[in-house]
C-alpha cells in the first residue's frame, strides 16, 4: 500500500482522489463510492466494501474513503468505530467467532470463551502473538437451535462443549 499511484490510474479516475496504491482492490472501493454518486450517504456502504476487500479498515483506507466521498475524516472515523461490524485491526490467519446470543449464553457460551482463554491466553477481540488465531464474539448468529454455536473460519459449529471447540480450533490451525 506504500507504492506511488500509477499514472494510468489517475487518468482513469479524473476528478476522483488518487488511489492509495495500485492495488486493484482500491478500484472496487472507488466503484462502490461511484455507484452512489460519491454522496456522503454512501459512507457505510463504502466502508463495507473496504472491509470486504481488505479484511479491516486502516488509516490509509479511512483517509481514502473520506476524500472519495468528500466527508471529514472525523465522520469516517466516527462511523467506523460506532458500528461493531467494522474492525480497525487485522485478524489472525484463523478466526473463531463465538456466539454470545441469549440462547448460546444460557447453554454455555461463557465456558467456551473461558476454555479458549485458558488454552490460547486470548480474550474476545484479541489475536495470538503468532498471528494464528483471533477470537471474536457475535451478538447472535441466529443459529439458536444449535446453541452454543461458533463460527470457525466461516464454518458454523453447533452444540459445542468446551473440549469440542478446542479440538476443532486445534484441527483448524494444524490440519
Amino acid at each position, binding site marked *: 500500500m506504500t507504492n506511488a499511484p500509477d499514472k494510468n490510474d489517475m487518468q482513469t479516475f479524473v476528478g476522483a482522489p488518487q488511489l492509495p496504491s495500485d492495488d486493484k482492490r482500491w478500484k472496487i472501493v472507488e466503484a462502490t463510492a461511484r455507484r452512489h454518486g460519491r*454522496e*456522503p*450517504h*454512501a*459512507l*457505510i*456502504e463504502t*466502508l*463495507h466494501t473496504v472491509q470486504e476487500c481488505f479484511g479491516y479498515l486502516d488509516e490509509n483506507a479511512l483517509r481514502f474513503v473520506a476524500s472519495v466521498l468528500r466527508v471529514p475524516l472525523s*465522520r469516517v472515523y*466516527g*462511523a467506523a468505530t*460506532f*458500528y*461493531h*461490524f*467494522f474492525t480497525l485491526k487485522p485478524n489472525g490467519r484463523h478466526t473463531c467467532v463465538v456466539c*454470545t*446470543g*441469549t*440462547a448460546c*449464553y*444460557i*447453554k454455555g457460551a461463557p465456558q467456551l470463551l473461558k476454555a479458549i482463554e485458558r488454552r490460547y491466553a486470548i480474550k474476545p477481540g484479541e489475536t495470538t502473538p503468532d498471528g494464528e488465531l483471533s477470537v471474536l464474539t*457475535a*451478538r*447472535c*448468529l*441466529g*443459529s*439458536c*437451535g*444449535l*446453541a452454543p*454455536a461458533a463460527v470457525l473460519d466461516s464454518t*458454523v*459449529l*453447533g452444540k459445542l462443549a468446551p473440549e469440542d471447540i478446542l479440538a476443532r480450533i486445534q484441527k483448524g490451525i494444524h490440519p
Partner: protein
Amino acid sequence: MTIEELHKIALAERDAQKKFQHHVCVCIAAGCLSSGADLVRDALKMEVVESGMQNEVLVKGVGCMGLCSAGPLVTVETEDRMFSSVTPESAPEIIRSMDTGGDPLAGGLHHCPTNVPFFERQKKIVLENSGQIDPERIEDYIAHDGYLALVTAITEMSPLEVIEQVKRSGLRGRGGAGYPTGLKWSTVAKTGEQEKYVICNADEGDPGAFMDRAVLESDPHRVLEGMAIAAYAVGAQRGYIYVRAEYPLAVKHLKTAIKQAERLGLLGNSISGTRFSFHVDIRLGAGAFVCGEETALIASIEGKRGTPRPRPPFPAESGLWECPTLINNVETFANIAPIVRNGAEWFAAIGTEKSKGTKVFALAGRVENTGLIEVPMGITLREIIFRIGGGIPDGKQYKAVQTGGPSGGCIPAEHLDSPVDYESLARIGSIMGSGGMIVMDETSCMVDVAKYFMEFCMSESCGKCIPCRAGTQQMHGILEKITAGVATPADVALLEELCELVRNTSLCGLGQSAPNPVVTTLKYFRKEYDAHVTGEGCPAGTCKTPEEVKGAEVNV
C-alpha cells in the same frame, strides 16, 4: 404484468412441477445450512442423476421448515414424509427407496413425524411458503399466488381502499411495539403528493431472534410484495431494506429477488402499466442494535452514526432526507399480501380482540424443540413451551421464559397461562418484542441473566443521552457486585431507583426499555437477588462465591 400474465406463469410453473412424480425439498436456510444442508442437497441431486431419475424426482432447496435443532431437514412432499438430521451419506437412500420401493429408514435415516404438536399446533400465514418454495425462483412464488395481491391492489383498488383494508384487518407492527399498521400508513399517505420512502426494518438485533432472517431467506418476494403494496398505498416511489450484514444468505436471496421482480416488471417503472413506480435498494447494517430504532435506522441509511433523535417529528412526517417515511418490520410486510389477497375479515378472525393474526417466534434455550414457530395470537405461553416446544429437556424444572430480548422481561411459571398478545405480555412486565423466546430452567441464575442483558444494553447504548449511557453502566456495575456476592441491600435499592430513572428519562426505546429484564427479575425472582446479597450464594450455582472470586484474583 397483468393478472392474466401472472396466472399464465403460475400455471406453467405448476405444470412443470407436476411432471415430477416425487418432490424432495431440502431446507437450505441458515439453521440447516450450518449443519451441512448444502452437501445433503448436492448428494441428493447426484443420486438422482446417477440413478437416472431426472424426470421423476425434483430436488429443490427451500426455506426454513422450523425445527432447526433437528436439521438438516428433508421432506418428500409427495409422500408427506420428513427426515431429520440427514447427512450426505444417508441422503441418497431417500432417492434409492423411491426407485426400489424399499424402506428408507433401513439406510440410517431418521423419520421426523409431522403429526406432532410442534407442527400441528402452528398456524402459518407469514411462513406459509417457507419450506415449500425455492426462494431463488420467482416463478415458484408466483405459483403459490405470489404478486397476485400487488397486481390486484394497483389495478383494481385505490390507495385509500388498500389502507382501509389494512386498517380493518387489525394488523399491528410486528417489530415489537404493536402500533396499528393501517394508522401508520394513513399518516404517511396524508402528507400529500411529494417524495416519500418506504423502509423495511430488517436489522434484527435481538440476540436469540431469527424470525426476520428466516422470512428473508425463505420467502424474500413476500417482503418485496408487501413493501410495494405499502408504497402504492402511501404514495412512495423508493424503498430501502435495511438488513444486517451478518445475514449474507438473506442479502443474497433479497438481491436475487429484486432483480427477478424488476425483470418481470413487478418492481421498477410503471408497474402493471400503471403510473405507479417503485424501486427497492438494499442497505447493509453494520452491527448496531440501536439501529432497530427508527430514527437511528434512518440516520444509518443516510450514512451517519446510528443515533436516534427526539420524536416528533415522527418519520411518517419527516424521515429519510426529511421526507415522509413509512417504516415497518419484515414480518409486518410479510403479512400484507395475504391480507389483500384473502380480505381483512379473514385476517381479523384470527387471534384475539386487540391482537389479530399470528406471530412468528424463535423458540430457543432450554426447551426440547428449538426452532421457528408461527402461532395464532392469544395462545398461552404454556402451550408454546410445553406442547409445541415439547417441554424442558433432561428432567429439569422450568424457571422462566424471556420474551422481547434486551427490552423484554423474564416470565415465571405463575404466568405460564397468560395469553400471548401485546396487552397481556405488557401487563406482566414483558413485551411482545420482535419474537425471540428463550426458555430457561433451574440452571440459569436470573441475576446473571439480568446482568447479561444489561451488559448488552450498556455496550449497545449509542452514548447520545446520559441516562442510558451512564445509567446502564451503573446498573451493570451493581449487577456485577451482586453476582460476585459482594453487594449490600442498599445496592439493590439503588438498582431499583436507577431502573425508574433510566426508564423515564432516556431518549429512545433502547434506554427506556433497558431496565425491563432487571425490573421483571426483581419482581418475580427477588429471592435470588436476596440470596446473593445475604451471602447464601447463587441458588442456581452459576455465579461465583466471594471466596472463588478472591481465589481467582490471587491467581491472576
